Structures are given as C-alpha cells and as structure tokens.
C-alpha cells in the first residue's frame, strides 16, 4: 500500500486531482483483487483451474498495459508486440537455465532475469524503432507485424549450446560443434526446456503494480503530455518544438522493455518454451490489441479489466464443451458493440452523469 504515496502527483496539491484519483482507483482495484485471490488461494478455496490462471492473467494485463502505451497514448498501431515478449521470454529463460546452478537464490536469479530480458527487449525496441518509427499509420502496423514474425522465425532457427569452450551458436545442431559434455540450451524450434518454474502470483502482482506505476506516471508527466500531443496533432506538436522521433522512440522502448518482463513471467511459468503463432506470433499480437481496444485506447484501467476478462473467459467457458470458442466469439462481439457502439456510449454517459451529477465525466477516446 505504500506504493500509492510514492506518486509525485500527490505532493503537488492537497486535494486529489482527477487523474490521481483515477489512478488510485486503478491501484486499489488491482490490490483488492490480489488480496482477494491470494486469500482464497491460501485458504484453499480456489479451484486448481483458477489457480493456474492467475499468472497468465498477470502476463496478459502487463502486455495490454504496455501496448496501450503505444496504441492508446502514442496513437501508433503496433502489431508486433508479441515479438518483444518473445525476446524477453527467451532471454530470461536462457539466463535462468544457464544460471540455475550458479545462482541458487531464486529471487536474485529471477530479478536478474527480469533485468536481462527488459534490457534485451528495450535494445530490440530501439533497434527496430530507429528505422520503423519514420513510418506512421498503416505502414508502421505492417512493418511491426513483419518484425514480430521475424523475431519468431529467428528464434526458431537458432541453436545455442554451451560447453567447456564457451558458447556455440549455429543454424543447425550439426554445425554446433559441441564437446560431448556440452549442453544445448536453445534448441531451434524445440525451444528452451527446463526453465525453473519461479513465476508466482505475488511476482505477477508486483510486476503489474510496477508497470502501472511506470505507465500512469509517464502519462501524467510532462513527457506524457508531449506524447499525447503527438497523438492528437502531429503537426501542431512539431511546430511547438516537440521532438517527435525522440518521444516515439522513448515510448516504443519503454513499452518493449515492459513486454520483455511479461515474457519472463510467461516463460518462468512453464517448463517448456517454444515460439509458435499462438504464443508469440501475430495471433498473440492481435489478441493483445483486442484487449487494448476493448478496454479503451489510452484507458489503463480498461486494459486491465479487458485482459483479465478475455483471458479468463475461454477457461471459464470450459463447461460448454464444443460450443466454447463459438460462445467466446459471440461474447467478444457483443462486448465490443456494447462497449463502443454509439447508442451504448450515450447510455453509459447519461448514467454516469446521473450517478456522479456531472462530475468527472468519462472520457471517450
């Protein structure tokens, strides 16, 4: 709970500003659900199926928040977000598998894995951002989509092994040239196996809170306002001297680093890690975009709710057997209509005006 007091915004005024209040509600919501599920789990009231959902839901939330930074706040469409998650997952797992016997304290190893992954994903974000961010709109979307696929393909063709002579990197096991005592860590399309299962709900929660803290504070800062001005009117922003490329790169890098951390959370929750279309390909990128769009562009709290509901829904619908994915699709369509259809938006606005008597009107992006 001390995290709330860290917000620099609160020191500025004694009465809470609307944005601060909004953020506090989001923090409170996350903390409430964490405490609720942690208690349920500790007292043994949570089903195994629901327990298994806790960490993946945290991963989806972090991915949704970080993509919202690019799509909602910066206003650029990125379709390769899962690529950064992929880099983070593989770098983090690689590090953990390598250091499993060297660093035996779990939390130190995991923290280092998070740092390694965040740095690797951030570097990838910068490298890709430099050429790519000169593009905008649809072109950017296409290039990021391609980029996500490239990362997946590269990971699937790389073989990395380690023996007494150090690391060996090749495009096939035959060319690896390992000594007999050597061990293949990244085994091409077979991925990395044997990642220690260190992700827990507590770690997932801490990571969600850190992500929230970074993103909400960034949005409320001077930098955040500059970023949003690029989204709202690029030419006007440029004319008042805002360095567009710099801010775009900044957002892209931060978003990539956070996605990299989500990747570590993902890979340390499973003992086998492979890059497929469903987990790191365009399917996943689109899925994250769906979370963001459903939750509302630029709406962080919305992203959290949408990611949780949409991730958990297919699992909760298991009782429907064969109709599961059909019903899921219908629910998704209905939610999209209800959430963003003009009629429902008006209805919701009227309700919120009635409830709050005109105070703090909901913003529609």
């Amino acid at each position, binding site marked *: 709970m001390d995290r709330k007091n860290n917000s620099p915004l609160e020191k500025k005024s004694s009465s809470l500003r609307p944005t601060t209040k909004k953020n506090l509600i989001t923090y409170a919501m996350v903390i409430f659900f964490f405490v609720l599920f942690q208690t349920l789990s500790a007292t043994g009231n949570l089903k195994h199926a629901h*327990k298994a959902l806790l960490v993946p839901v945290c991963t989806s939330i972090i991915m949704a928040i970080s993509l919202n930074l690019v799509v909602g706040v910066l206003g650029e469409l990125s379709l390769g977000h899962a690529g950064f998650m992929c880099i983070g997952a593989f770098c983090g797992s690689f590090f953990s598998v390598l250091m499993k016997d060297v660093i035996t304290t779990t939390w130190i190893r995991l923290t280092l894995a998070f740092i390694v992954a965040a740095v690797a994903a951030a570097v990838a974000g910068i490298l890709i951002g430099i050429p790519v961010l000169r593009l905008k709109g649809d072109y950017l979307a296409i290039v990021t989509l391609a980029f996500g696929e490239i990362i997946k393909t590269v990971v*699937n063709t790389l073989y990395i092994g380690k023996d007494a002579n150090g690391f060996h990197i090749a495009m096939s096991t*035959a060319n690896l040239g390992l000594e007999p005592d050597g061990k293949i860590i990244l085994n091409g*399309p077979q*991925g990395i196996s044997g990642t220690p299962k260190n992700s827990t709900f507590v770690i997932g929660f801490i990571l969600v809170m850190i992500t929230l803290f970074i993103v909400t504070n960034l949005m409320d800062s001077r930098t955040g306002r500059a970023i949003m001005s690029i989204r709202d009117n690029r030419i006007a922003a440029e004319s008042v001297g805002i360095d567009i490329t710099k801010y775009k790169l900044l957002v892209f890098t931060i978003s990539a680093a956070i996605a990299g951390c989500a990747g570590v959370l993902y890979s340390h929750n499973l*003992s086998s890690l492979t890059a*497929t279309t469903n*987990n790191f390909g365009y399917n996943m990128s689109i899925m994250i975009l769906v979370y963001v769009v459903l939750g509302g562009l630029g709406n962080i709290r919305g992203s959290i709710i949408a990611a949780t509901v949409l991730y958990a829904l297919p699992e909760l619908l298991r009782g429907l057997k064969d109709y599961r994915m059909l019903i899921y699709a219908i629910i998704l369509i209905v939610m999209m*209509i209800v959430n963003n259809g003009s009629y429902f938006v008006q209805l919701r606005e009227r309700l919120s005006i009635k409830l709050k008597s005109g105070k703090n009107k909901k913003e529609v992006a």
Partner: protein
Amino acid sequence: MKLRKILAVVLALAMVFAFAACTKSDNGGKEDASGEANSNTAALSFANEGTIKIGSIGPLTGDAAQYGNAVKLGAELAVKEINAAGGINGYEVEFRMEDDVNDAEKSVTAYGTLKDWGMQMLMGTVTSTPCKAVSTEAEADNMFLLTPSGSSVDCIQPDVAFRVCFSDPNQGIVAANYIVDNALATKVAVIFNSSDTYSTGIKDTFVAEAATKGLEVVAQEAFTNDNATDFSAQITNIKASGAELVFMPIYYTPASLIMKQAKDAGFAPTYLGSDGIDGILGMDNIDTSLVEGLMYLTPFLESSTDEVTARFVTGFKSTYPDQTQYLNQFAADAYDAIYAIKAAAEKGNVTADMEISAVGDAMKAAMVEISVDGVTGSGITWSAEGEPTKTPRVAKIVNGKTEAA
C-alpha cells in the same frame, strides 16, 4: 440506428442457437449412444462402489485438432470396452478430455480443470510441447502420466511419466537402421521442416545414426511452415547430390507436394517417411501412382491381421461409423494407453479412493512390470525411464494400399 443494432445482436444470438441446435442434432446420434452407454453402464454391475477417473488433454480445436480427436475416440472406445467387461479392479472407469489448442499455457490450465474434476491419472497430453509443460506439473503432484503420442524426449522426464509412442530420436535411429539392414541405399538425402520440433528431432538423430552406420547423408534440405508449398530449390539440390533415397521426417501434406514436384522434375528416388506420413492415402484427390512404393514407419497398420488390431478396427468402425477418418495411429496409441493403464492399475491395486500421489507411486512401480499386447505392438514393456519397448513397423504402399513391408 439503435433498433438495427439490437436487431443485429438478436439475429446473431439466434444464429448461434440455430448452429448449436444443428450440431446438437448432428451429434444427436452420438449423444444418444453415449447416453445409452451410460444407462448400460448403470445396468452393468461393478464389484466396487466409486469410479477411477482418467483425465486427458489434447488439441480438440485448432490446427492439430485431428490428433486430439483421434486420441479422444480411441481412448473412449477402450474405456467403453473396459467398463463393459467389469471395469478396472471392479471400479467403473470415467474418462474426460479437455482441450488445449496445442498450447502449453492452456494445457496447464486444462490440467487444473481436470484436477478439480478429481482426475487420478492423466492419459496425455497428445502433443509434445504442452506435454513438457504438463509433465512438470504432474511431477509436482506425483500424478501418473502416460502420453499416447508425445514423442519429444523431454515429455517423460519425470519418473512418473511414461509414453506409448516411439520417441523422436528412436524413430530416427530405426529409420537409419532400416535403410542399412535392407540395403535400400548408400546415399541418402533428408528433407525436413526446420520450424517443427518433431521433424528436426527425428532428422538430428537420423543424421547422427547414419554417420555411425556408414550411411552417407549427401543433402539436408530444410523448409518451414511458412514456405511449405514450393520445394523446387530443395529438390534441385537433392537431385544434384546424387541421393538414391529421400528420408522425409515430415507430415503428409508437404510430403505429397514434394513427391509431386520431384516427379515433375524427373527425379524418382526411393522414399522413406516417418510416422507423420501416415494418412497420406486418406488425402483428398491423392494420386496413388505418385505414392506407389512409398515406405513409412508406423506403429499401427489397419490391415494387420493380429487379434488385437482386428478387435480395435472393427470396434472403432462400429462405434464411430461417421468418424473413420480418425482411425489412425493416434487413436491406436490412445487405445493402447488405456489398456496399459488398466494393466498397471490392476498390478498396482489402484482403488477409486486413492490419492493422486498414492496412485502415482503404485502405477510407477507397476508400469515396469507389465507387458501389454496392444494395437501398436505385441508384448510392449516399459523401462523405468518411461520408454516403451516394441518393434517398429514399416508400411509400404503397394497398388494404392498400405501393406506391411
């Protein structure tokens, strides 16, 4: 405007229910049959109260759905037969399969769902990557795991995990030995899918084994899922390398394209495939002259005349007359898996009220002592590592039909 939207929603919902109704009536026969089976089992008497619950996980939807569905049907057939014969140790057997869309993360949540249901042992998972993830969970719970078709090495790393199918390395070794033993060729080429675990796994051990057996691998050509339609570059290279035999550790769709394009290029080597080739004759519009003489490893041959296979094939055809496309090695592996579980459970005196971990200990000890005459091999035994010992079968396509080679 709003009326139209509400109308759209209502119509969409109406469509869903119409669809649901359609599939319901389609499934009507099946559901009635299972209902009947249930009433039959209610009529059947079991020596003991309670049920032994066997869970399974596999892709029932998505790209790999055909494997999961075949496993489901094969296992359900075995369960039905076992219940009709008095169950396991006098307990009724309950079987439930959950979908994982061939995704490791989904597989782990499906495992949780099955645990909530009361699963005592797991016959799964069907595909390799999810199996690795689930076997770690099973190890933590000491849950007995028997995968029908998870062929990757890591699938059965825990003590408590076993498998029915051959492992990938094993297939590569068997293929290399088969070529050498039958003097099929001295120069071989391999064409494999580098984006596929199964394919690369077999290729690696095949190449390694070939080297020790004096078999010369003159070309190793790769393709990926994304460019699995045009093989002209690979075929040109293989042709130039002078290979007499092409080993294809791949699935049947690319294999049929490779053989077609090689023929068009005037290249006609001997072909040997892994068990992924199984099903090539079931493809729509397959030109049987093209695949004439093709050999492949397979654990299951429908035309086998032994008693167990005959019982399985007739049982499958009469129980699922509309779904004979699933009568393949996956269904056979699952069928054998359930019978192996039965044999081990009887040996280990597993009861309906035993805890997961106790079942795991009993089954683990019993698995290495049993011998099962199954569809995929007779006298199958298991090592403590979980690998089965059985002779592989090689099938050959002669006159458009598969025969034992």
